[in-house]
């Protein structure tokens, strides 16, 4: 279905791209800034820096005291935060319409003149906070580092997506004030930033205010945007296995996918849905409902901008099911799908579910502003929110099958296998049983080991 959100797109003299979607349904405005820097731009020894830097953006700027950004906007009914990811960093504020200019002023102050206020004390404090974030989200959480491990398996050493956004403790420790200054000057320029605004503000009024507050920010050079050569599917399977103090074993099975915002990516992402993202998907139906080898299956497609994306399946083994057996069955189903492709019902389901979730997302002003920023910042397409469903609808079953055949065969997989506590014993048993089997030459003994 064609969507018709009004989108106005202009660029200030200093290079700041400003996209406005006027919507008077509620007396609220969403302000959203995408800066074209994420963890993929970090150099070796500096991992985690883009995210640490994002924290410092809340610790004061030329006219704003440390912590005042949160405190002042929230006291006027603002909801705000920021996130860092592989390709970008985003900053967002949803405010009552009467606080729209205050939000712009505060954003302009830190995006223009952060460095006046950065101190060693703030850097040290936020480094500690980020370390606690890392411990809470990853190091102290069951399976917490599984996806981080998967990135490192799917993407080769030195590749921009090889390391996770949270970075390493050692690199966080090594970050200096000079790094903060250099990073800001290099990446936080108007030409590397998209400001999107959605909500209860007229277009002329919005541009006047943006010009007033963001216009004075010096232009600065646009950062070099040399793309990384695209990656093809992995040539051979890669595995990382370990045992954790968790009750159930899990497989995280990753694949390279085509770069986001292409027809090939949409086809591959649709294939991921058919494999594990729907109640009717191949793995869910076979492994969870019919054969009961898994407690659950999920699938995700992580669209990325620099020559490759990531698709992944998560399978939790049912009690008593060995991960090797689960992986073997999953691989057979994955290859079978690559051979046959989706049915007409699969295609209908993917489109219907994507339509609902896409429209649900755009229903909220903050998510709509974020989607506009996403497609404008990474793909130079401010109108993408209106055309996305049509582009998905144009993907044929043949294209999905071709994408699966090219990218989603078992031979292209990378697997992080997290064994449950107690599995150490069975691994040893397996080694012994294999030794016995070799000694006796008995096929029966070799078969028995799998059940041990």
């Amino acid at each position, binding site marked *: 279905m064609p969507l018709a959100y009004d989108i106005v797109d202009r660029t200030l003299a200093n290079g700041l791209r400003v996209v406005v979607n006027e919507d008077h349904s509620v007396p609220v405005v969403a302000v959203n800034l995408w800066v074209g820097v994420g963890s993929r731009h970090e150099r070796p020894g500096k991992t985690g820096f883009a995210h640490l830097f994002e924290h410092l953006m809340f610790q004061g700027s030329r*006219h704003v005291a440390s912590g005042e950004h949160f405190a002042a906007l*929230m006291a006027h009914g603002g909801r705000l935060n920021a996130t860092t990811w592989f390709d970008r960093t985003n900053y967002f504020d949803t405010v*009552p319409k009467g606080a729209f200019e205050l939000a712009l002023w505060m954003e302009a102050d830190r995006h*223009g003149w952060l460095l006046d206020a950065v101190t060693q004390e703030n850097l040290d*404090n936020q480094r500690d906070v980020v370390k*606690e974030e890392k411990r809470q989200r990853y190091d102290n959480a069951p399976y917490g580092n599984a996806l981080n491990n998967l990135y490192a398996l799917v993407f080769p050493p030195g590749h921009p997506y090889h390391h996770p956004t949270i970075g390493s403790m050692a690199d966080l420790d090594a970050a200096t004030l000079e790094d903060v200054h250099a990073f800001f000057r290099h990446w936080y320029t108007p030409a590397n930033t998209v400001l999107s605004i959605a909500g209860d503000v007229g277009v002329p009024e919005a541009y006047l205010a943006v010009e007033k507050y963001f216009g004075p920010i010096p232009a600065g050079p646009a950062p070099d945007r040399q793309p990384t050569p695209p990656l093809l599917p992995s040539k051979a399977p890669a595995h990382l296995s370990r045992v954790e103090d968790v009750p159930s074993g899990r497989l995280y099975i990753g694949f390279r996918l085509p770069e986001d915002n292409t027809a090939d990516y949409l086809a591959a992402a649709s294939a991921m849905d058919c494999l594990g993202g729907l109640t*009717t998907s191949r793995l869910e139906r076979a492994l969870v409902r019919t054969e009961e080898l898994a407690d659950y299956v999920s699938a995700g497609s992580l669209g990325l901008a620099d020559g490759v994306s990531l698709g992944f399946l998560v399978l939790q083994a049912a*009690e008593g099911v060995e991960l090797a057996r689960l992986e073997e069955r999953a691989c057979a189903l994955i290859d079978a799908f690559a051979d046959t492709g989706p049915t007409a019902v699969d295609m209908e389901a993917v489109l219907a579910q994507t339509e609902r979730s896409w429209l649900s997302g755009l229903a909220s002003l903050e998510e709509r502003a974020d989607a506009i920023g996403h497609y404008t910042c990474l793909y130079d397409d401010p109108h993408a929110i209106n055309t996305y469903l049509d582009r998905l609808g144009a993907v044929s079953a043949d294209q999905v099958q071709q994408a699966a055949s090219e990218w989603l065969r078992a031979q292209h997989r990378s697997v992080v296998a997290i064994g449950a506590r107690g599995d150490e014993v069975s691994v040893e048993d397996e080694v012994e049983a294999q030794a016995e089997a070799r000694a006796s030459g008995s096929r029966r003994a070799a078969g028995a080991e799998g059940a041990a």
Partner: protein
Amino acid sequence: MTPKGPRRPGVRPAPPWSFPVPTVTELDNGLRVVVYDTPGQHVWSLRLALQAPLAGEPVDLEGVGTIMARTLDEGSENYDVEQMAELLERRGVALGAGVGERGLVVEIDVTRRQVTGALELLAEAVLRPTFPEAQVRRHIRTRLAEIDQERTHPGQRAAIAFAAAFYPATDRLSRPTGGTAATVERITREAVAAYHAEVVRPGGSVLTVAGDIGAVDVVGEVEHALRGWTRGSLPVPPAAQRPRVKRSSIVLVDRPGSVQSEIYVGCPGPGRNVPGGWAPFPVLGYLMGGSPQARLDAVLREEKGYTYGVRCGFRPRRDGGLFIASGSVRTEVTAESLGLLLDILEAGRDGFGEAETAGGVDFLCHTAPGRYATADTVADEAAQRALEGLTTEHTTRVLQDMRELTPKRLRKAYRDWIDGTWTSVVVGDASVLKKSLRKLDRGEVTVLPC
């Protein structure tokens, strides 16, 4: 224009706002249909709220409500499990069901043009589920695996330990909503079907529909889809009377090798129907632990760097409620953090300043239009109030009352509940923490295995 940029702009006052007003129809069978027309919201949200208090579950089958909720869409009189799955996906329906202290909410999100088909599937799931043996058995097994998972996750483990320590064993709330391994293992398909027959009744239930309604005859569509549903209403058992906890205590759940400690602290709080009104309590929760500049994080995060964040708030229950503060901190500073946290919470008894009060009131009142801007948030709010026997007029009244709050009223409301008696749970490495927590002198320390 100076090189320093333009002056800081002022803020124009926000226009008055109230929660959207629904049209309400009571059907012949007692079901109330509450419709919110929210123009521009092309995805509709439907929430069917059914009174089914946890306390009504058979004691030896606790968790039966959760298994029932999870198997509603696993096969019906007209569609088997695969047909049901296929129809839901092809119509783009997101269907979910969840159980809380008061009852069951069945949720549907769907685009407007698929609403008729979604209502048909809602009726299949709610009125005509068959609970196939194999699917019930599978969900029981999955729930048992989930119980194991909850024990390894520090936040969930802390919440479970808190409930067990805070409520007497006779209280249903002392045990997980989804049941324990001992009770879940006993659940059968017959027990699920019997529980369904008992609680799924139109009388006292509320179906909320929010979305861009246009010319759709929602009530007519609902009446048609749910025709034949006539089984009266469920008598709701009285709420438990809870004695107030008299002494502070610390439960230390040993999780060897933890690099952080999860802290979960609580005391009794008010119910939503508290004399004097509910309005002060969201504001108090926000001022103490609702932002990085709130009192807890101003010290524990922004000054000390001990945590990624500590949150707190008042949580109403059927009878009374809770005040809870929780977060995770670096292992080495666990006892110090717990001590600081309790000190900060108790210092709230000394009261809140004018500016602090105004900031908290403005945050909650002025974020409301944005927080309730989408069909799903409107429907969620209405469904939760419905389970409490309230409507969203209550939401509007609380917001109006909030604007009148004074520092004096906030102080009184806080002192009514926060008296310095705490049930504290710490999930972390006991070999490192035991001694320092005992030295803290914040109640007797009991160590539990994970």
